[in-house]
């Protein structure tokens, strides 16, 4: 169970309980209840659970005499009866009523609460039960074969209407007094009027029997769908709470389509009495969102193919990002595999800059005859594998081992076992005769074990009846343990290829868990969810976006985990990842760019201040600690892709350009990689060594580029033409080609994504094409507030700065980035803390919250202080921190979305910095000011860019010099941080 903030897309609370719910209702009794209220749940367990709406802990259960699963229920709240009740129908068709408001105390004291009434309704498969709040006495019960109306007073049956043959009712709602809407499983709905005789016109007839006999339904209107009835529908009804108060009937379909009807306030039949059809008001599908925003939803490597050939023919069917090489490998539907540089590709794809395009180095690997279904770079997590190996599996049942640097085929394994579904490396500690092996899962449920050095298939285990769910290795006895979807386990001997054991049930579970428990055995698990979606491309029952996200979220935790592992090994990883997202709609596969703000900031600053050994290491420790203690939530931007691509065999030639942009050491590594292939073992060692040494430098470049990319994505472009141009020219933050969609990672493994069309609905400024990427109109408002609140800084800032433009530019990038990270931290902090502290006293919690924030701030601001001390000598940290903190805390209290806040601050800071830039520009570079008003000419832009690149390279050294020249600043930092925390506390 998760609680989500719908506005910001953050997951606030999540829990895992051993109950499967089928319905959840929120109940709050305002005058007698403390806390957030209850969630009343029913599902595949006995009776009704009461769950705390805030903490998601189980409070109590409502029990009954003949306990069974509850199929459906509703909360009856009526002024006439003066008692809130819960009416539920069990799976065997027994109607049960629990009193809610009068049993509040007994529930809180955990006494048994039994049902007040119980009556067998004689209807199986009850789908819905609804209380009529208009008459306050009718009860609608919908089962799959019929719907019935009962009198709530004595539960006597008033009328029954059976469904047509072949149709199953799925639910219903009361529209008004004596007016009902019933919908079916295949997407139809019917509106009925319950007619009664003149005798029972009064609402409370003295004699209920009279009414009973005279109620009969009359069909007024109906709705229906014309096409595609083969998928189940989920339908519902809602009354709009704001203008224009539509009554909406909605229907969701498994393919991602939603259909709306407006139910008229007074539905009426045709003049001749026959039912009238209500027309569809709106119809929309997820696919439409991608189709309508084509500019944005092109494939991640489309520009590679388009630039040369202009034909798009292939769809990316699998992709993997190799962080250590910054390579993005994409396998296509037509069997081609593209290998490109990840960050460069993304930049070229997203940013408006001609020079970046066409200069992209990429390789095309030809080998598969049909779609590439999976890719594996085994060296990524396990150094035992040769770094040049790349494995790909295809629909043609062939696994190819490539040399990723040269593009040659090292070996082809022909399996003849259907599509290759998944490629997995053996765990770190498992070795087969001192060699590592790769195991591959095929469509016919077989598992093949491939020995890469020997180029042979050691074992092809083909006995499995059910899809493979888990694969584990026993290094002691050289066993392969395969867990299947039916919970049976097969144990194979790798050396001889014989099936050693086949177990089911408890023993099977014990075998699987015994491997997990022993510490020296690592288990490599295959996720059933991702496996399933990859294999079938077949949507689950309700393929809402949340399901899709569930899949993503696992992937995220997975990559995060692995990157953590690498961090321990002191190999520096990038705070940036490209994640492919598989959807069931072939044409809507896209990639997510994940940015780790904390990590990126750390990299940027450590590289900048690498001269300050003592203070630096201290701060690093600090930030790491912070990162651990606060629940890490990262903002991320994402890019949509309609995956497509075409064949092109452009090679090499671009490397020269890359070399210009990347520092010398990177170049060395790369050329080494390129030339490699002769003596593999040697090369492996040497290249790794070089990478280790030069990692600092690589990271500076990649980190600044990544930071710039993130800033480009976040900055609201088009607010002020002049600012935009200044940003592009001086800060080297490039304009976006098209607006991006944002997403938010929360609670460690939960993600929410916006669909590509979010702009149209959110602010309605799509027509003004100049205003791109603005999250909402509130951003302006916020940024003005921010400017006002931090007014004091502007004066100090406007002092002339001695730095050259290039250095200044990159510093500003870091400064801006700092600000974003700060906001991220502050906004995320309270939600994390309040939940922890909640149990303690209120006043204390507020206090703690502040202290916590200060603690975070102090570690942070000491960085920040160093930076700002360079740009402006007279900075006043106390004032700034206080006001900033207050403002942002205030924002987070007002539930302003994190991206809004980031954009606002970014806009304000950019406005401010460019103001100074403009002034100094008058002084130093008259050329620039001439161009200010115009839309920047291409030539100029280019030249300034290249100049910037050179400057960026020089930055680290210069900074080191500066810092070492001002030792006073350095000493001051720990002191400053101490003072600050004391002051507030």
């Amino acid at each position, binding site marked *: 169970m998760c609680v989500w903030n719908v506005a910001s897309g953050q997951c606030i609370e999540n829990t895992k309980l051993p109950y499967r719910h089928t319905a959840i209702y929120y109940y709050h009794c305002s005058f007698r209840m403390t806390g957030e209220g209850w969630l009343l749940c029913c599902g595949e367990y006995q009776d009704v659970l009461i769950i705390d709406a805030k903490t998601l802990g189980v409070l109590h259960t409502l029990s009954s005499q003949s306990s069974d699963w509850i199929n459906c229920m509703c909360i009856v709240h009526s002024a006439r009866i003066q008692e809130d009740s819960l009416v539920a129908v069990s799976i065997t068709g027994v109607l049960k009523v629990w009193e809610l408001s009068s049993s509040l105390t007994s529930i809180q004291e955990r006494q048994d609460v039994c049902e007040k009434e119980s009556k067998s309704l004689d209807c199986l498969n009850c789908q819905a039960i609804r209380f009529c709040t208009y008459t306050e006495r009718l009860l609608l019960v919908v089962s799959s074969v019929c719907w019935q109306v009962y009198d709530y007073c004595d539960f006597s049956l008033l009328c029954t209407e059976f469904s047509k043959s072949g149709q199953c009712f799925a639910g219903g709602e009361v529209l008004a007094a004596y007016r009902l809407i019933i919908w079916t499983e295949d997407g139809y709905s019917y509106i009925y009027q319950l007619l009664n005789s003149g005798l029972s016109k009064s609402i409370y007839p003295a004699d209920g029997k009279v009414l009973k006999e005279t109620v009969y339904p009359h069909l007024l209107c109906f709705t229906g769908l014309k096409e595609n009835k083969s*998928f189940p529908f989920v339908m519902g009804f809602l009354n709009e709470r704001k203008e224009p108060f539509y009554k909406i009937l909605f229907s969701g379909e498994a393919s991602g389509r939603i259909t709306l009807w407006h139910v008229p306030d007074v539905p009426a039949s045709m003049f001749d009495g026959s039912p009238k059809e209500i027309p569809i008001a709106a119809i929309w599908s997820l696919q439409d969102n991608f189709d309508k925003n084509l500019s944005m939803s092109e494939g991640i490597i489309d520009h590679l193919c388009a630039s040369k050939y202009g034909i798009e023919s292939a769809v990316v069917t699998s992709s993997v990002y190799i962080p250590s090489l910054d390579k993005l490998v994409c396998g296509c539907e037509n069997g081609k595999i593209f290998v490109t540089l990840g960050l460069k590709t993304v930049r070229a794809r997203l940013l408006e800059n001609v020079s970046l395009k066409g200069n992209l180095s990429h390789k095309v690997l030809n080998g598969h005859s049909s779609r590439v279904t999976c890719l594996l770079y085994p060296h990524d997590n396990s150094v035992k594998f040769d770094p040049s190996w790349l494995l790909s599996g295809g629909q043609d049942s062939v696994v190819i081992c490539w040399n990723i640097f040269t593009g040659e085929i090292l070996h082809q394994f022909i399996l003849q076992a259907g599509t290759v579904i998944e490629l997995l490396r053996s765990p770190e500690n498992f070795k087969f005769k001192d060699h590592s092996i790769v195991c591959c899962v095929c469509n016919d449920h077989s598992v093949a074990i491939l020995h890469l050095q020997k180029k042979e298939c050691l074992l092809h285990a083909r006995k499995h009846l059910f899809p493979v769910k888990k694969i584990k290795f026993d290094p002691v006895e050289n066993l392969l343990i395969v867990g299947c979807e039916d919970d049976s386990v097969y144990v194979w001997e790798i050396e001889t290829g014989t099936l050693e054991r086949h177990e089911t049930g408890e023993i099977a579970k014990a075998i699987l868990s015994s491997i997990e428990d022993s510490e020296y055995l690592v288990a490599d698990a295959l996720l059933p969810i991702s496996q399933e979606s990859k294999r079938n491309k*077949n949507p689950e029952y309700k393929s809402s976006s949340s399901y899709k996200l569930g899949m993503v979220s696992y992937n995220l935790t997975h990559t995060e985990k692995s990157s953590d592992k690498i961090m321990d090994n002191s190999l520096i990883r990038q705070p940036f990842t490209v994640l492919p997202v598989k959807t069931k709609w*072939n044409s809507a596969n896209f990639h997510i760019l994940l940015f780790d703000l904390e990590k990126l900031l750390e990299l940027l600053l450590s590289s900048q201040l690498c001269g300050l050994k003592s203070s630096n290491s201290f701060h690093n420790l600090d930030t790491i600690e912070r990162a651990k203690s606060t629940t890490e939530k990262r903002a991320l931007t994402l890019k949509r892709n309609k995956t497509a691509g075409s064949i092109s065999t452009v090679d090499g030639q671009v490397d020269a350009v890359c070399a210009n942009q990347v520092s010398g050491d990177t170049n060395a590594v790369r050329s080494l990689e390129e030339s490699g292939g002769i003596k593999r073992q040697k090369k492996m060692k040497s290249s790794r060594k070089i990478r280790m040494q030069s990692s600092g430098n690589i990271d500076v470049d990649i980190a600044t580029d990544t930071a710039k990319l993130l800033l480009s994505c976040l900055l609201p472009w088009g607010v002020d033409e002049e600012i935009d141009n200044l940003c592009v020219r001086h800060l080297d933050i490039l304009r976006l080609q098209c607006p991006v969609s944002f997403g938010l990672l929360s609670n460690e493994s939960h993600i929410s994504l916006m669909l590509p069309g979010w702009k149209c609905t959110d602010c309605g400024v799509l027509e003004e094409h100049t205003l791109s990427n603005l999250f909402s109109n509130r951003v302006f408002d916020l940024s003005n507030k921010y400017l006002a609140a931090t007014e004091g800084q502007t004066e100090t800032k406007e002092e002339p700065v001695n730095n050259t433009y290039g250095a200044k530019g990159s510093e500003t990038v870091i400064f801006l980035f700092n600000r974003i990270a700060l906001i991220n931290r502050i906004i995320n902090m309270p939600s994390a803390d309040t939940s922890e502290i909640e149990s303690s006293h209120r006043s204390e919690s507020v206090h703690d919250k502040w202290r916590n924030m200060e603690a975070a701030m102090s570690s942070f601001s000491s960085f920040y202080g160093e930076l700002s001390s360079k740009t402006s000598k007279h900075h006043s940290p106390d004032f700034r921190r206080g006001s900033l903190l207050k403002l942002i805390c205030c924002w987070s209290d007002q539930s302003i979305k994190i991206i809004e806040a980031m954009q606002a601050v970014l806009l304000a800071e950019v406005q401010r910095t460019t103001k100074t830039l403009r002034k100094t520009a008058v002084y130093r570079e008259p050329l620039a000011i001439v161009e200010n008003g115009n839309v920047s000419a291409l030539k100029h832009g280019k030249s300034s860019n290249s100049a910037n690149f050179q400057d960026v390279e020089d930055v680290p050294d210069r900074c080191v010099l500066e810092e070492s020249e001002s030792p006073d600043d350095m000493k001051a930092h720990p002191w400053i941080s101490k003072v600050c925390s004391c002051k507030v506390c």
Partner: protein
Amino acid sequence: EEEFKWLLQEEVHAVLKQLQDILKEASHRFALPAGGAEGAAKQESFVLSTAGTDQVKGVLTLQGDALCQADVNLKMPRSNQLLHFAFREDKQWKLQQIQDARNHVNQAIYLLMKRDVNYHFKTGSEVLKLMDAVMLQLSRARNRLTTPATLTLPEIASSGLTRMFAPALPPDILVNFYINLNKLCLTIYQLHVLQPSTTKNFKPAGGSILHNPGAMFEFGNQRYEVSHVHKVECVVPWLNDALVFFTVSLQLCQQLKDKISVFSSYWNYKPY
């Protein structure tokens, strides 16, 4: 393409029919009182037995998903005293696992019934989806029988089961009934109270199907330690049948899925 059409129109329905028959047979095993006549569910008695010692003897009577009678004799290990306890006349103990398994099977049957012979399958993915849904219910049904709930000792102590006996259970005895595969199991825990002075290394035991002697827990401000565990069980033949039916029908489902996916991998089909 012709072959695929045949598969969709003929083979699928044949398999579905077969599945329905098997599952209906399985659901009959659960002795459903759905026919309306509550008394129709027949009562079956089972004799509890242990391997080795005969410290616990008893007879359990099962009626559908409810244990309606239990008659247990426990020979105390040290004193050789015979302890006898039985269910109160007016009480029944619902075996949640059987009820859940029965409900899951009925859901599966309901899913299959909705797609009867007259239904025309148009796409392969439609069949796959139906099979997924049915398999989900079936594997849940089977899992309910094969995996008893892991309970903590305080949970056992606070369950309604302790109040069902006449004469009432002595405070140092805990009982728990559960299904494990085809066996109906009864575990009896004998406890002794831990003195507050000796509770320095008190470590409450977590959830488990079967707790071992020495497991400690706290209940009602009193700390206990399990001194003896007695486990007795009896085979319920119809549960075995039901499990076999589940396995067979799961395999049928998977085979049908495989048949359909063979076609889809030939055509690069789009699911929609």
